[in-house]
């Protein structure tokens, strides 16, 4: 169990580190897949089976594919040589990294790991899926419904934007260019 945890952690650190230093942006996107898969592995070790699968479905099945499409369809000539750093952004990134690091360190030291481990044993034994279902339909119903409406509005907006081009004949559009 603990060995698997270190294996997944190693994959997360290695792949996300590689994303920073690999110059080919398509390779970066594919390396992101390893990061996402390893994170879902950690979720499974923590007993959150539903969250792990949702992580794969949303981040790899959805967002990563979107990123890949974005990269592939807006290709520039030098896709293998994307500049990965410059002086101006480095100061801001160092500041942000420092901030996040201090935040994480304080959280880690404040955690009561003893009681967490005891809780975890019970959590792993049972699947989280029915609890999530009950909570979504009782305690968190309003938030759940609001998110549903928000997503539907976004979907309709996307359909509207895509449908705008259908009013004009496509050929006239392309001949302008």
């Amino acid at each position: 169990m603990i060995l698997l945890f270190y294996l997944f952690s190693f994959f997360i650190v290695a792949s996300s580190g590689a994303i920073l230093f690999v110059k080919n942006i398509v390779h970066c996107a594919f390396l992101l897949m390893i990061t996402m898969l390893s994170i879902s592995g950690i979720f499974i070790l923590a007993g959150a089976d539903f969250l792990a699968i949702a992580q794969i479905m949303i981040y790899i099945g959805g967002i990563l594919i979107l990123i890949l499409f974005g990269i592939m369809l807006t290709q520039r000539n030098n896709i293998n040589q994307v500049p990965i750093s410059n002086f101006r952004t480095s100061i801001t990134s160092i500041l942000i990294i420092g901030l996040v690091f201090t935040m994480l360190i304080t959280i880690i030291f404040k955690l009561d790991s003893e009681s967490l481990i005891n809780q975890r044993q019970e959590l792993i034994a049972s699947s989280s899926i029915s609890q999530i279902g009950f909570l979504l339909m009782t305690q968190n119903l309003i938030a759940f419904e609001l998110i549903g409406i928000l997503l539907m509005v976004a979907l309709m907006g996307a359909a509207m934007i895509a449908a705008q081009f259908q009013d004009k004949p496509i050929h006239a559009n392309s001949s302008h260019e």
Partner: protein
Amino acid sequence: MIALLIILPSILLFVVIGVWAERKISAFVQDRYGPMEIGYYGIFQTIADLLKMLQKEDILPTKADKPLFLIAPIIIFTSIFAGYAVLPISPDIIGSSAKVGVFYMLTIISLDVVGLLMAGWGSNNKFAIIGAIRAVAQIISYEIPLTLSVLSVVMICQTLDLQEISYQQGIWINWNATSNLEANYLFGIKALNIDTTQIGGIFTWNIFRFPLLMVSFIIFFIASLAEANRAPFDLPEAESELVGGYHTEYSGFRWGLFMLAEYAMMLLVAFMGAILFLGSWNTPFPNIGSLALANWTSGSPGTFLGNIVGFSWLLIKTLLIVYLQMLIRWTYPRLRVDQLMHLCWKILTPIALGIVFIASIWRLMMI
């Protein structure tokens, strides 16, 4: 562990027989004989082809993106093979009895999209990249009617565990239960007061517990054809337009992995269709009065006979669906891209959504 030892060889065997069957069926549909030379009725044709394929050179295009090109077939096959992990192949044999079974399977097989994009991009070939983007657009779109049709089954069964869904569809529904005995009613309506729990057979299959699931099954079947890139949805490898689609540049063993993945996907969606809709490993014959056909044609879970008979029923149903897939491939012409999207978004998705809505009401009548 035993599930792995059964499933991996059976996939390989299925590919060998499946390719031969496909060529034979296509021949019969077109009024020809098909392969006839090697072995009786050409039965060893695929093995000869396989030996030829393995000896071919593994060509790596000079300008290909090497790591992506080499890894892509492995990712595609692995992600589809991972889907078999939660498949119950008999009352007792299942790879992993995870509670999130169906959700896991739908998710993990969608990972092959990443592999397809890798293959298309890595090949550095126009046809390959167009084929890959077509395949991904198609697979992502058809995931929605597929998931919705599976969701209506899940709403009726109230579980994501495929083994539990299997148990619910037959006379062994209360096999693992100690209290809270469940009961099946004809068409799932308790008010009709016809208890089919001990009748079993076809009357407790999901398509009978909620008759609209028959429509759902058809939607599932159409969407699964598109997911497996089978004709009439084989636009990604439309040979008249795109040479070979995303596997244009592949040869030898790596090309074989694509073929293996395609046939493994066909088998997987056929298994899923049989498990979710057609009673899984349960017998189709009901107990009618003293004629206890269901008891005679299925052994009780836990026994050797029960597992063998259960596996056989599941395999028969699955192979029938595979046969249907092959027949359709050689009967219907290929769709155009806009027709493909029209069918998905304007026909299948609304119907599937409606069935999900009715299923939630139907479930209230079942208890």
